[in-house]
């Protein structure tokens, strides 16, 4: 099972579910180092990939993401023990971990891609928003205009500008064209079904609270929390009953039910969520309700059990029994889980020299890129190494860290904080100092252990059980997302339409006609740009298109397939895709 979540149209940007390691393909530190260290100075071309991957990273840094990572890491450990004749009774528990991890990951995958695409194309922090999503916060941090004065709600102002600029450009329209042309499929990420589902859920939520159509960033934040901070799913994943089809079915039924429930969410529930998220961490503690999971269940007993289980896991992860082989193998998991908040912006190969006084100099070619103190205890010497540019998404950690490795050893680190923010600098320094292992080496160890797991899953008769489980998850995933994404299509036509869209998404429906396709793309984007009819007419004219002709052609298609596509509100237009 592939665990990399990629940016659409960008083959080199991805996030791994287990390690939460993020790679941004467009970064070239030789060129971009200076701009990525600054505030609001990152290259604009990186915006869509950063937003997409940051959304994945944010989703996976959650109770559900943490437990999924734990299950897969434990399965790998168990496989390594079995392969070495040390896991006499581990086959059943290993299969249980695999069933739980793979079923939940498969069921949530299209949603994860849909959320990331929604963050790219649609999410806008509402005017004066008290809640800003992580992707929007990063847009403000990396692309916002930090020279302009802001009020108390600086973040939304700083994120709205760069998002608007990106969405107003041709690259965004082309990327959206690419999404609409992606197949209605589930084996290559489920981008289109996931995106259509998230947009449908947004419209449904706005029926009870019309403000959500404008506060789309709040909706994104809510939807992410609704699924990834779900205590009942955590409880199901941590259940240790023997592996069976029932285990997979329980997870599938739960997630399907969750999709039903999110469509019944009330304005008051979203408002409670917004008020809670807007609280400072200290105020949350004071209110006696410091955990987002509280908002998604009234079952106190479930909440206590789930919290306790996560606490036990954290304790277990923090203190592996180093007298056992399993304990030694668990160190890989421990280090992986402890680095899941780190976003990796880029790496470059460097030459690292440390002198006898502990001064470290880093060079690429003839250019010195860093001079500073080495970490204590580093021996003098020169060797090739690597510079990683990273930051943590934990609150108050937006400072960038340059991690300098000589060979495999961390020999120096430097922090670039916002000028004058000593508190952030200190927190970030502490955070990065705690990273005691080279992430490259750790990922290599993870991949090696995954190979062990893949070998064990090929053993007979395990291979047949695993194949059956994967087929079940895939079939159910298709059925559920088809129902969600194509909810407005009459039931007797739904499967036919999904089949028409299987290969090239909406392209056949839109007659492969560039004018119709771009008419729809631009109308859709116009909502997040807050464009009114005269501006939409002007926008389409830039592409040589006529709004009335585009609307007429789309209306004919809507009639032919019996699906609503555009809602014409006179001065404003809203597209369902």
């Amino acid at each position, binding site marked *: 099972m*592939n665990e*990399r*979540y*990629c940016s*659409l*149209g*960008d*083959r080199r940007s*991805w996030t791994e579910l287990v390690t939460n390691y993020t790679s941004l393909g467009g970064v070239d530190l030789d060129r971009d180092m200076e701009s990525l260290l600054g505030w609001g100075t990152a290259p604009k071309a990186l915006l869509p990939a950063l937003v997409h991957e940051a959304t994945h990273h944010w989703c996976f840094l959650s109770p559900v993401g943490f437990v999924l990572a734990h299950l897969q890491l434990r399965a790998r450990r168990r496989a390594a023990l079995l392969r070495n004749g040390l896991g006499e009774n581990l086959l059943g528990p290993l299969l249980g971990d695999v069933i739980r991890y793979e079923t939940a990951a498969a069921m949530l995958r299209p949603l994860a891609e849909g959320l990331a695409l929604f963050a790219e194309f649609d999410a806008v922090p509402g005017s004066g928003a008290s809640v800003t999503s992580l992707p929007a916060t990063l847009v403000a941090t990396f692309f916002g205009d930090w020279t302009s004065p802001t009020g108390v709600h600086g973040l939304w102002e700083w994120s709205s500008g760069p998002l608007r600029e990106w969405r107003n450009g*041709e690259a965004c329209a*082309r990327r959206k*064209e*690419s999404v609409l*042309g*992606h197949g209605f499929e589930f*084996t*290559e*990420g489920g*981008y289109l079904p996931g995106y259509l589902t998230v947009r449908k859920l947004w419209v449904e939520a706005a029926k009870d609270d019309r403000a959500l159509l404008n506060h789309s960033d709040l909706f994104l934040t809510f939807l992410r929390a609704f699924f990834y901070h779900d205590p009942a799913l955590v409880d199901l994943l941590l259940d240790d009953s023997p592996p069976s089809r029932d285990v997979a079915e329980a997870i599938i039924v739960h997630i399907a039910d969750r999709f039903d429930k999110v469509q019944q969410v009330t304005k008051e529930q979203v408002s409670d969520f917004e008020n809670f998220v807007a609280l400072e961490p200290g105020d949350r503690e004071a209110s006696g309700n410091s955990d987002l999971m509280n908002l998604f269940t009234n079952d106190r007993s479930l909440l206590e059990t789930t919290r306790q289980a996560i606490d036990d896991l954290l304790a277990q992860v923090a203190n592996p029994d180093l007298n056992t082989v399993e304990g030694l193998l668990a160190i890989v998991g421990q280090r992986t889980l402890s680095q899941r908040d780190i976003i990796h912006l880029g790496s470059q190969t460097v030459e690292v020299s440390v002198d006898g006084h502990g001064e470290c100099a880093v060079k690429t070619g003839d250019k010195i890129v860093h001079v500073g103190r080495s970490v204590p205890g580093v021996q003098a010497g020169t060797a090739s190494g690597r510079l990683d540019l990273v930051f943590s998404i934990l609150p108050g950690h937006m400072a960038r860290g340059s991690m300098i490795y000589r060979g495999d050893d961390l020999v120096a680190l430097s922090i670039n904080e916002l000028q004058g923010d000593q508190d952030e600098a200190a927190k970030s320094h502490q955070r990065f100092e705690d990273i005691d292992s080279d992430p490259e080496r750790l990922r290599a160890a993870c991949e090696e252990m995954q190979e062990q797991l893949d070998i064990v899953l090929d053993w007979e008769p395990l291979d047949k059980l695993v194949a059956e489980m994967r087929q079940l998850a895939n079939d159910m995933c298709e059925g559920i997302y088809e129902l969600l994404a194509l909810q407005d299509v009459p039931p007797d036509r739904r499967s036919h339409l999904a089949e028409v869209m299987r290969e*090239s*998404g909406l*392209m056949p429906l839109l007659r*492969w006609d*560039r004018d119709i*396709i771009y008419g729809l793309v631009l109308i859709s984007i116009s909502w997040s740009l807050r464009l009114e009819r005269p501006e939409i007419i002007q926008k389409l004219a*830039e*592409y*040589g298109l006529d709004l009335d002709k585009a609307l007429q052609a789309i209306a004919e298609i809507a009639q032919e397939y019996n699906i609503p596509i555009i809602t014409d509100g006179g001065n404003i237009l809203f597209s369902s895709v």
Partner: protein
Amino acid sequence: VPESETQLRIPNLTKLDRHELEQYLGESATFETEQLTSEKIGEPVTIIVAVILSAKAIKGISLWLMKKRTKNEVKLAVQKKLPDGTEISQELQFTFSSSAPPTAEVVQKVGEALGADDNLIAEALNIKLPTQ
């Protein structure tokens, strides 16, 4: 590819681009999609078109670019392999006289930018493609 010919490769195409270029270039063009490996499952596929620089190719690419233009501009990333084996990557940008330029103007500019000689451009101007 015959050694005496210049080969053009246009990368990063969408499915819509492919569909349109198939209409204009017909069998003279070949399309490649990057092979998926187990590690890369989930990554969107990139499409590349390869075509010999010919009158038909100039006309087809010109008509396709006319569809793709925004205002009176359009960009084209192209890789050329010359008869002597030299490979050149170019980022071309075309600015036309109006937002609805005459086909002849587009063909002329595209042909010149792709390095076609005057005879080939003249031939391209006179070709009528089935989908025109």
